[in-house]
């Protein structure tokens, strides 16, 4: 017969408390997102649990008021350029870092780690100063360059372990059979690297759509991305109907989450944050 001791009861209380924290967190998170969704469809919502009626008119008014068409085009131009450029800069660098051992490699590794460890606001203000003085501040190229600072190291750090696990003898075999550098790259290396490149670039895409600080500090009126436009809308709340802002927030949320869902087919959620994970004490 099972007998409950004080220790057993303490242990199950502890387990219940831990799960209660998780449930509380998830419920409030759903509430936060759910209230944006509900509000964006609400015809009138004052002093009640749920709106008086539902409508989709706020999406049309948000589209006009906030010029969401232009903002979305800018967003995808910036994000597309950042994704392509961080692939072009990051993947070859990761290949060199994974395959060669050279003097100064540790210092270089530190250079690639720092932009991920230093928060964007801290390096964003000096960076914005430099960009404004060189005339790039406020332009789309300024925004793209600023966004590359964290994304290139991000691609490098994801790709290094990925490249290391590809057997170098595969490349050697291609050489033996007479493939030049170009043919080896196109027919051997690229297909092997593709899953890693795809995963890292999808993560870059999601992170760049949501990157507020760097874009905010470097963008001018014509180079705002969706998240910065959303910030200004929330900042000036009271000028527009709250449902209109929420409709815009929904457009932003859908844009981000679609890519997140695609990205999660290729990567584990924990990879979203463990980009800067190092071997401790080495």
């Amino acid at each position: 017969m099972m007998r409950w001791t004080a220790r057993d009861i303490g242990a199950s209380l502890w387990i219940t408390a831990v799960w209660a924290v998780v449930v509380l967190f998830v419920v409030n998170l759903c509430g936060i997102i759910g209230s944006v969704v509900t509000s964006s469809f609400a015809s009138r919502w004052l002093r009640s649990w749920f709106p008086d009626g539902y409508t989709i008119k706020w999406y049309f008014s948000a589209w006009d008021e906030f010029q969401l068409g232009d903002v979305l085009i800018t967003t995808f131009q910036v994000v597309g350029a950042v994704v392509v450029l961080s692939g072009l800069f990051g993947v070859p660098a990761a290949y060199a870092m994974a395959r060669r051992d050279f003097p100064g490699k540790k210092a270089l590794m530190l250079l690639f780690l720092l932009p991920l460890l230093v928060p964007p606001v801290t390096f964003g203000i000096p960076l914005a100063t430099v960009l404004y003085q060189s005339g790039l501040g406020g332009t789309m190229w300024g925004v793209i360059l600023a966004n590359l600072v964290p994304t290139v190291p991000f691609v490098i750090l994801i790709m290094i372990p990925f490249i290391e696990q590809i057997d170098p003898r595969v490349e050697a075999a291609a050489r033996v059979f007479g493939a030049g550098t170009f043919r080896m790259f196109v027919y051997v290396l690229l297909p092997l690297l593709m899953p890693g490149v795809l995963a890292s670039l999808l993560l870059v895409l999601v992170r760049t759509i949501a990157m507020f600080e760097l874009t905010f500090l470097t963008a001018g009126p014509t180079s705002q991305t969706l998240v910065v436009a959303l910030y200004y809308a929330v900042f000036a709340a009271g000028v527009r109907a709250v449902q209109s802002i929420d409709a815009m927030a929904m457009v932003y949320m859908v844009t981000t989450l679609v890519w997140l869902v695609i990205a999660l087919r290729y990567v584990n959620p924990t990879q979203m944050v463990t980009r800067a994970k190092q071997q401790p004490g080495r």
Partner: protein
Amino acid sequence: METRLPLSLRLAARGLDGVTLLVLPAALMLVALFIYPFGYGLWLSFQPKDGSLLGNYLKFFSDAFLYNTIGTTLALALPVTLINVFTAVPVAFRVRKMKNQRVLTTILVVPITLGTVLVAEGMLNYFGPQGWFIRALVSFGWFSPGEIRLVHNYWGVFLSLVITGFPFTFLLTLSYVSGIDPALEQAAATLGARAAARFRHIFLPLLMPGLAITFCLAFVQAYSVFPSAVLLGAPAGPTRVISIAAYQAAFEQYDYPLASAIAMIMGAVQLVFVIAVLASRRLFYRGPAAGGKG
């Protein structure tokens, strides 16, 4: 007579050849866009408008409106980071044993992905005076209407830092916890150690280095809080954090030297904190977290 190898071969022997050069574009780009701006900002911070060397720093530390931001930011970042880390550890230990981890980790990655601006807008609805959260508390009879306020004050920023910071801390902790070999725990259990003793003597020492890094990353992020301090806080008073001061100096007063000085002070506070945490890490065990042979 000694024959000298061609330069390219001697370099290749040290690991410098065509492949190594592939690292150059990325390295040069980061030097230009990360190292140079930092150096330039540091130089600029010693070129204040009044012409003296330390003018900006003297101005910062003599104006309460400016130097108080260090304390205001610490009062937000430190409690939030401690709560996030100390909640993340027990939760990560439970989730470690879960079969369907992926459902929970996917839910938790959503607020990180959506970012602080969207969370702020959602929180203005949800925690606002007419929001579901306050309504629920009032209908439970715990508070009367209008008794508590959770937005446009300290607590608004605090809650937003928990909502975006906890998932980050948790996922990082989970990856460290999963890296500890379960055989070590089983060995301790076989030898009769209770759960609390196993945690205290087996897991905690192995987890400490990872936890120190998690703590540093979470603190540094919370210390540079910006959009939620403006949108959910009281940016003129109780939540005037240091990044707001830097932003206003740069983009409202166009005093780039002062803004650079504030950014350098912000970086310095973060650096001091990180060094303190990582130095205290040396007091703990450092070694492999995997058991077995070898």
